[in-house]
């Protein structure tokens, strides 16, 4: 077998990562899917505009000095009767520009959603690896806790954790801590699926010879888990993380809508919707309508992206 290295194979490694990515099946499938393209674009626009909200938003809705109560209840695209100012999406009862509050609110929603998913992911991966790898009592305890948690609706779990955590926080810090408590609550209610998927992959991979080979050369269990087993679980984890992000954003909005989430001083989309629904029957529909549409667009596009990712990364569905 004295064949020389073919130029074809060595070429592949001369190219950069970006080049290789652009030639991959994954990128090809992405380009060919209108759903993926549209939802990815929407997600990008929303994320970009919330990250750069202070530069994009016409006003800072949380700076009391810039507010003019006379601007209150201005309908969208119509000049205010007293001040003559016009607002793209109108203003709320205190004269805050709805467009600006949405940009700032989406920031909170995305931050809470992403942090909660990150937290759930790290927790789930660690517990899943440990229970799958070590088995025995460790596994039994972790997975039974997961099973018990699955019997409650996750929003209920989040409310419970939120309530308990709030009870422990001193009153003067409550508003500041609310965001972090929210992240903790949503994250803790969401780790189970990560743990289950990672455990499943670990059970399959740890039987393979390369794990035995790594054990044989004397690698420690944590090194084997992180370096050899975890990479095999990453694509399902990525899919779950994306879908969880949509769910976490909705969960945050639900909690905030119920009044147990983000405080009015740091309103998220859910808080805005809660505030807006009070004015729905008095005719100021825009205070509710625009935040709700934004939440819909955000959750839907993240969810569609997650669905597409699941299909694209699943070799059996190709």
């Amino acid at each position: 077998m004295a064949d020389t290295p073919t130029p074809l194979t060595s070429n592949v490694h001369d190219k950069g990562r970006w080049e290789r990515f652009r030639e991959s099946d994954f990128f090809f499938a992405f380009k060919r899917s209108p759903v993926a393209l549209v939802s990815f674009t929407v997600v990008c626009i929303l994320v970009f505009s919330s990250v750069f909200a202070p530069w994009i938003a016409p006003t800072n809705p949380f700076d009391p000095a810039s507010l003019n109560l006379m601007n209150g209840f201005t309908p969208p695209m119509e000049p205010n009767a007293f001040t003559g100012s016009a607002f793209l999406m109108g203003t709320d009862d205190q004269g805050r520009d709805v467009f600006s509050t949405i940009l700032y609110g989406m920031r909170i929603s995305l931050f809470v959603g992403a942090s909660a998913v990150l937290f759930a992911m790290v927790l789930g991966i660690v517990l899943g690896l440990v229970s799958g790898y070590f088995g025995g009592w460790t596994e039994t305890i972790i997975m039974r806790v997961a099973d018990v948690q699955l019997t409650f609706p996750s929003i209920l779990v989040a409310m419970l954790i939120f309530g308990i955590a709030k009870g422990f926080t001193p009153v003067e810090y409550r508003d500041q801590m609310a965001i972090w408590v929210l992240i903790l609550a949503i994250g803790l209610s969401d780790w189970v699926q990560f743990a289950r998927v990672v455990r499943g992959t670990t059970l399959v991979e740890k039987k393979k010879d390369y794990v035995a080979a790594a054990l044989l050369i004397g690698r420690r269990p944590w090194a084997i888990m992180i370096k050899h087993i975890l990479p095999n679980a990453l694509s399902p984890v990525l899919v779950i993380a994306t879908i969880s992000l949509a769910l976490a954003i909705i969960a945050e909005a639900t909690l905030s809508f119920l009044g147990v989430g983000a405080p009015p001083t740091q309103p998220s989309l859910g808080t805005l919707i809660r505030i807006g629904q009070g004015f729905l029957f008095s005719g100021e529909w825009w205070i509710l309508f625009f935040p709700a549409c934004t939440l819909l667009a955000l959750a839907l596009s993240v969810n569609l992206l997650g669905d597409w990712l699941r299909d694209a990364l699943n070799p059996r569905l190709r």
Partner: protein
Amino acid sequence: MTSPVLSIHDLSVDIPTRAGVVKPVDGVSYGIAAGEILGVVGESGAGKSMVGNAVIGLLSRPAHISGGEIWLNGNRIDTLEGERIRRVRGKEIGMVFQDPLTSLNPLLTIGDQLSETILTHLPIGKAEAEKRVVAALEEVGIPGAAERIDSYPHEFSGGMRQRVVIALALCAEPSLVIADEPTTALDVSVQAQIISLLKRLCRERGTAIMLITHDMGVIAEAADRVAVMYAGRLAELGPVRDVLQQPEHPYTHGLMTSTPLAAMDQKRLHQIPGAMPRLSHMPDGCAFHPRCPRAQEQCRHAPLPAIEDTRAACWFPMTAEAVE
């Protein structure tokens, strides 16, 4: 013979089950000298791989060593624990697994996997390790080794992958390599290459090799000595030429006559009647007696003769005329 690299004395492995304790390995003893290839043969479930796993200390629970001793380079290794067993087995033992598809991590480049092993055991830096990786790949005959260290396992064919696995087993310069069915998953032409590669490395480096297989052809081609296992026990142990050409144990004889050989003009392959006993229902006396054409009353009850004195663990070993 110089003092053996690996010597196993009276090794037993127990698996406690609901139906009682079964012994997949029962009183096995053999040694392997430096530069020697010992072939271990037997049918599925004979305990060949169990011995290998016991030596590397990776028996999966609830299986455990229940008796006997394992010595590696003058150190007893079956009683070592924790940190010390890890250091010894990683440095001194290399392992070639059966299936090259699962014995390499699909998500790491082969260069990463080789240097992981080298860096774990040799006190050298990354640049030096990379040179060693290239050298190790060249030694097992990977063409263009320097360009291929960034390749992933799926970019290699099965035979090439098995070469990488062999490089992986040898790169920390172990004194013992356990090759567990290294050619079973490969096609015949590649088998011959892998076997001659193992033989060459064994000769050049003086590595002791335990070659576990059920393929008599591979044994005849590669091994210096052969250990025939049956139902967890050693049936016959001796130089490969003697054992294959003039088997003393009736089981070895049965194995040989049921191996298709182009040189022998056989109309029909011989079969050994019956099947290997279940480990939970082992017969008394010789484990082979229910299937043995030469079995007599003594075989049913008396414990077997120890293999140290004779070549075969049998009361009525086959002589030259009996083979005819």
